[in-house]
């Protein structure tokens, strides 16, 4: 089957979160990935964020494991400082010309000690900090950067610009500086290309109305994000930039560079700004509860999962003010103040930050901010004056703010557009890469896929979803060449050390002068030699250098060491490296222990060399005490059944099924109804104006004719056993086999011996499960729904469109009421799709009958992204939008055969009555709240009844439970294109597992000693992964299982957190690698010596 014309490698252009996810999905499912990133390290905008909405998770915390995984992946090749120049060839075999700028630092030698940057005399605007701080000409963009290798910014380096200096070369202890490094042109052979270049933020500079150039106190949202960040220029202290005074009032201006065709040409909505403004306001308030925060907006667009409640909390709990008004301009007002009042000025606590500020002037650089007016006189305070129309009072209000944050929108960079044009990829009118509703991650050109903001403005989870989708599509095209270019780590044999007396080797690292300049490395080494079980001690100049690694491995072999300790830097960055070294010497990698005497020692106690040395000795002693108790740990292999079950035969389920079937996997679709199609059967058009019945028909016929897909309709799940890789799902049909054909449900037990009577059930063995059970439209209980046939729901209207109902053309007046059953007390979430859906339907009505009077009664119009253009079109076509609020909902009445809708007009503030021939209720999307299914697969449901994904941001299509994935409306309301993308993403996640055929369990997992387990079940209660279970006898086995009722841990599901271990009163649980004995040995030895 192998097809030589297809190349099993994919190029991912862009190292933001989208690119990262796509690369990981592909590399983990059998494709070699080249990741081309234009900056020196990956991470993109997400790395710059302080927190992520709506949960306010620390952005770096959740992202850095992914960064590290990319950096260490043997099937991902990072090509940094690089750009695509040209692409030749076609789908399956492209040749890509890549231009890579010289780094001037040898990545194989650089140990990221930072000595070079310390000595570098040249300060440059730090783009990571949005130009608000300075970095050096030799730099890493941020401390957690991957690859963690320095780079020289040749445009600013004194050595390159003036031919002098050379400090870094002199300082570098590793000899990594190479001034002779040259730019390179590479040609990469790949089968598919994923474009994930991300976005630029709108630059408000040059637009006088925003006062951005004139005042330092007007900042963009990305700048404010850096101010908020603990790793930002102010260490997270928000101060008024002009004078570092403590701010009292901050305003956010929404839609700067979005929904704006006057100041700029960006007619679309940027989708994320409302939420990030809320997030920033909440964080700012958390820093200082007395702060007054006001968000000026046009429509609050909080249409994502958990967003609406975040918005409500911002209002109700945090007291953030929301004012509906597009502020047209602002200006600076100066105020003289006397010295008494001046006390709170200049209170930045951190010296570095103050120096950083000063250096802006010292450096003599022309920065964007340089030209800004600063308050030269300390006695003059700057305020930002906002004039706005307050709807409530009906008056123009003038208000003063300390800081104004411009919620800037997203834009696609000219370079990206130019590249797209050059390689012939279609763009939308707004300049985003064009895709279609039914193939949302494929560009107009075969072989090119897309994810993230370049396809249209979106938030992180949506980008991650698309990344999965793009990976799925890119991989499917290359399925024939899967595993042809990937590398595998060779299996190595380990020496069995069981029963041996511990023989510990301790290696103490100088890290050049990083450690040795403070800590007496030789003394630590000599001290280590006196510790029990220590058989060998040594120091290394750089323990992580290749030659040191080789040396260590040789010593381990020669001295027959069976435990290894390296006292150097952080295990978070270097443990895998040394474990690899130990493994290469034939010793189980879990017999390694790392002591952090640099990050936790020399670097933080530089004025206390004696104490730092003593601390290093203590830490080494603790590590020795632990290491003698370490045991070799096994990573067991678990086979992954190669079959798939998809639950739900709607668009999402079918797409997921097709995606995996196209890659050669056998897929079973279990559908409760007697036919496939789900909600889409009743839908008319997508926001992209694609005809849904046509698309659905194509998809359904592909499914039913697919050789790898078996469809079970009218089928219900009876029971589920097992776990990742080894599920057993029993389904039954609504009728017995003989009646099945009449009903439309599947005959389940007829596949072997023809139709049989009796119970109609079947057990399917499968390795992964995709839950795509969908949701339904709420049947409204208000607005007289059901009392008059002119009152329909959104879906019912679509049915009328599909049936070309004559009532539609006959209608003279049509009204839509939005938020029916959504954003209310009993159902607080926004149903996301209804605004766009009503707008499209309204447009369609207009097309049918241009004279029809159409009114859309709304609370906030949430036509996010390019759907905003539909909203604009609707207004242009005379569709009237009337806003109502929750306290004054429209009233529907029928009298004399007339259908009247009374609503208070938001402009006139007067009730108006509309007589309608058609009233469409944009009714909420409600989940099935399938608790039985949730229990079967041990996956959670949220309060609203939607399934809860593993992580809101970074794992939107996964469950915390391994082997179970999620897509479509069961996750949250979403339009078809997003459902399809998520279905592909869920399939991609599933593929990561399936393609491995076996998975390795982690070594550091929990284990139960059943003889002392009391079977109380606390471990089951605290484990988020369902790893523990209580032993139950199989009734077929006849006699009770040993230790029945006692707990056991499924090593495949355990992630090794240890929550069960600390909760177990009986002490029956241990966490290998972090067991009580080991930790108590560390505690004891920390104090006793």
């Amino acid at each position, binding site marked *: 089957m192998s097809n030589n014309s297809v190349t099993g490698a994919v190029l991912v252009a862009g190292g933001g979160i989208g690119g990262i996810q796509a690369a990981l999905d592909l590399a983990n499912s059998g494709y070699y990935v080249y990741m081309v990133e234009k900056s020196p390290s990956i991470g993109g905008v997400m790395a710059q964020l302080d927190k992520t909405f709506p949960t306010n998770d620390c952005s770096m915390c959740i992202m850095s494991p992914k960064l590290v995984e990319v950096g260490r992946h043997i099937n991902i090749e990072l090509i940094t400082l690089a750009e695509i120049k040209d692409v030749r060839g076609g789908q399956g075999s492209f040749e890509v010309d890549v231009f890579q700028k010289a780094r001037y630092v040898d990545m194989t030698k650089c140990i990221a000690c930072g000595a070079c940057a310390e000595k570098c005399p040249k300060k440059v605007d730090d783009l990571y900090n949005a130009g608000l701080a300075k970095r050096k000409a030799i730099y890493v963009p941020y401390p957690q950067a991957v690859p963690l290798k320095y780079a020289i910014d040749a445009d600013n380096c004194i050595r390159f610009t003036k031919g002098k200096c050379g400090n870094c070369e002199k300082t570098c202890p590793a000899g990594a500086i190479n001034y002779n490094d040259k730019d390179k042109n590479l040609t990469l052979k790949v089968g598919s290309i994923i474009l994930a270049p991300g976005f630029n933020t709108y630059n408000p500079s040059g637009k006088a109305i925003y006062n951005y150039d004139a005042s330092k106190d007007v900042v963009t949202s990305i700048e404010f994000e850096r101010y908020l960040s603990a790793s930002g220029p102010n260490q997270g202290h928000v101060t008024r930039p002009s004078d570092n005074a403590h701010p009292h009032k901050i305003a956010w201006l929404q839609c700067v560079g979005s929904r704006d065709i006057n100041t700029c040409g960006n007619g679309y909505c940027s989708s994320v700004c409302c939420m990030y403004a809320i997030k920033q306001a909440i964080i700012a308030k958390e820093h200082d509860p007395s702060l007054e925060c006001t968000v000026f907006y046009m429509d609050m667009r909080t249409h994502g999962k958990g967003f609406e409640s975040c918005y409500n909390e911002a209002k109700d709990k945090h007291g953030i003010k929301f004012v509906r008004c597009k502020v047209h301009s602002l200006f600076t007002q100066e105020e003289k103040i006397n010295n008494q009042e001046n006390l709170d000025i200049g209170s930045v606590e951190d010296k570095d930050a103050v120096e950083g500020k000063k250096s802006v002037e010292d450096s003599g650089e022309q920065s964007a901010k340089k030209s800004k007016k600063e308050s030269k006189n300390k006695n003059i305070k700057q305020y930002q004056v906002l004039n706005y129309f307050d709807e409530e009072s009906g008056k123009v209000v003038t208000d003063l703010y300390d800081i104004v944050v411009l919620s800037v929108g997203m834009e696609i960079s000219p370079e990206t557009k130019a590249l797209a044009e050059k390689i012939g990829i279609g763009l939308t009118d707004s300049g985003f890469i064009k895709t279609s509703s039914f193939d949302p991650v494929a560009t107009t050109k075969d072989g090119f896929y897309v994810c993230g903001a370049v396809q249209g403005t979106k938030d992180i989870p949506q980008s991650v979803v698309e990344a999965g989708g793009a990976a799925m599509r890119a991989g499917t095209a290359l399925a024939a060449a899967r595993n042809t270019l990937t590398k595998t780590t060779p299996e190595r044999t380990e020496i069995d050390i069981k029963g041996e007396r511990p023989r510990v080797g301790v290696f103490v690292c100088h890290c050049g002068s990083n450690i040795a300049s403070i800590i007496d490395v030789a003394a630590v080494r000599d001290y280590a030699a006196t510790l029990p079980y220590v058989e060998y001690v040594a120091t290394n100049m750089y323990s992580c250098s290749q030659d040191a690694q080789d040396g260590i491995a040789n010593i381990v072999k020669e001295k027959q060491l069976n435990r290894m300790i390296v006292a150097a830097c952080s295990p978070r960055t270097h443990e895998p490296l040394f474990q690899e070294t130990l493994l290469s010497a034939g010793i189980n990698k879990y017999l390694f222990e790392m002591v952090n005497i640099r990050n936790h020692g020399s670097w933080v106690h530089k004025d206390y060399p004696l104490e730092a040395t003593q601390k290093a000795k203590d830490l080494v002693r603790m590590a020795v005490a632990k290491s003698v108790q370490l045991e070799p740990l096994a990573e067991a292999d678990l086979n992954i059944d190669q079959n798939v079950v998809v639950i739900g035969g709607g668009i999402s389920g079918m797409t997921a099924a097709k995606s995996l079937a196209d890659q050669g996997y056998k897929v079973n679709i279990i559908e409760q109804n007697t036919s496939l199609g789900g909600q889409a059967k009743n839908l008319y058009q997508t926001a992209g104006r694609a005809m849904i019945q046509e698309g659905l028909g194509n998809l359904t016929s592909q499914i039913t004719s697919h050789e790898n897909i078996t469809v079970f309709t009218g089928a219900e799940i009876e029971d589920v056993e097992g776990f990742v890789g080894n599920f057993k799902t029993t389904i039954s049909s609504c009728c017995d086999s003989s009646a099945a054909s009449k009903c439309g449900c599947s005959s389940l037990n007829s596949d072997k011996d023809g139709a049989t009577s009796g119970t109609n059930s079947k057990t399917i063995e499968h390795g992964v499960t995709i839950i795509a059970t969908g949701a339904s439209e709420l049947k409204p209980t208000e607005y007289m729904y059901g009392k008059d046939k002119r009152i329909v729901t959104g879906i019912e209207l679509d049915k009328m469109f599909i049936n070309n109902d004559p009532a539609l053309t006959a209608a003279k007046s049509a009204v839509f009421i939005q938020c029916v059953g959504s954003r209310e007390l009993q159902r607080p979430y926004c149903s996301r799709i209804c605004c766009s859906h009503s707008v499209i339907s309204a447009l369609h009505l207009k097309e049918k009958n241009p004279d029809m009077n159409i009114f859309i009664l709304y609370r906030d119009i949430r036509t996010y992204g390019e759907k905003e253009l539909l909203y604009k079109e609707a207004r242009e076509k005379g569709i009237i939008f009337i806003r109502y609020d929750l306290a004054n909902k429209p009233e529907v009445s029928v009298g004399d055969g007339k259908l009247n809708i009374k609503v208070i007009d938001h402009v006139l503030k007067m009730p108006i009555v509309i007589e309608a021939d058609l009233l469409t209720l944009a009714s909420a999307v409600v989940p099935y709240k399938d608790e039985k299914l949730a229990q079967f697969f041990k996956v959670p449901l949220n309060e609203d009844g939607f399934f809860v994904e593993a992580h809101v941001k970074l794992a939107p299509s996964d469950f915390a439970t391994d082997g179970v994935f999620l897509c479509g409306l069961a996750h949250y309301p979403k339009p078809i294109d997003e459902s399809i993308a998520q279905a592909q993403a869920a399939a991609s996640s599933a593929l990561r597992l399936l393609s491995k055929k076996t998975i390795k369990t982690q070594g550091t997992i929990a284990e139960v000693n059943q*003889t*002392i*387990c*009391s*079977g*109380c*079940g*606390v471990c089951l*209660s*605290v484990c988020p992964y369902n790893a523990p279970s*209580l032993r139950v006898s199989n009734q077929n086995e006849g006699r009770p299982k040993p230790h029945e*009722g006692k707990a056991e841990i499924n090593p495949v599901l355990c992630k090794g957190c240890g929550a069960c271990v600390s*909760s177990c*009163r*009986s*002490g*029956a649980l241990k966490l290998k690698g972090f067991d*009580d*004995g080991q930790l*108590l*040995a560390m505690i004891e030895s920390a104090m006793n010596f």
Partner: protein
Amino acid sequence: MTMNINQSDINKKQIDIINQQYTEKIREAAKRILLEKKADVVIGFKNGTEPMKTEPCLITKASDVDKLIWNEHCRLNLANYVKGRKDKVAVVAKGCDSRNLVNHIIEKQIKRENLYIIGVPCNGMVDKFVNVKESKVGVESETMQKNLDVFLIDRDMLQDNCKTCISRNPVIFDEMIAEPVKERVWTKEEKLKERFESVNKIEAMAESDRWSFFNDMLSSCTRCYACRNACSLCYCPTCFVDESRPQWVGKGVDPVDVRTYHFLRAFHCAGRCTDCGACEAACPMNIKVRLFTKKLDKECFESFGWEAGMSLDERPPLDVYKVNDSENFIR
């Protein structure tokens, strides 16, 4: 005051009558349950060998049911005798016993379907040291007057935990042998003030006094583990004090080891303790070990609104969490 003395006599008689009624009803129920095979065995109390003593007993034959008795000395918690049994057990349960049965069901130590609960509305237990303390039988106290409607026994003679009982009637049962007694209606403030009065007193002490108070209190502890063994919550196959790898609590009578034992035992009962008083009723040295468990009861009540064993639907507070749990102690 003469009124009161008379009242006391009336109470004494009332108790005797109630004991007699309860005893008969229990025997009747036990007999029926055994004959109807609703359970294989009945666990209840029999008379002890000395006054003020009772002994838990196991009845397997309907002909033996007359051994069963009920009086105000049925201190031990019979839930402790039920855990781990594989047969079908009927158990005589007062309020606190039933709360511990709830714990057992939640913690899978017994299946509800294997349990038949003979519910006893409880009139309070007499402190086992009451004679040692020169009992005040017949001598009226003010507290008794106030609590006449609540307890039939002189408050000063009551076991300490009974004085502030929140569930004298069983929370789950298959049958009741008498009409439920009237429960006191508590406000949260009253609970915090009265139920945890002893704890509040210690909290009000200076730190160093607290340390020496407990050290003094535990100085007579012999580590006989009667408190642990009488506790229905202590069912670990190997107690942490007996762990040997690592052996991190010494086994001698070093005060720190003794202290560690009591500290961690109480912690293991956190959110599970029903304040049944079995530990103190068992302690031969009359050590007020409930001062430890009650502190954690108080914390769980104050912070998580939790009282153990009141419902089958929720696991104890350390097995669960709420996103908005208090964290003002965390930086």
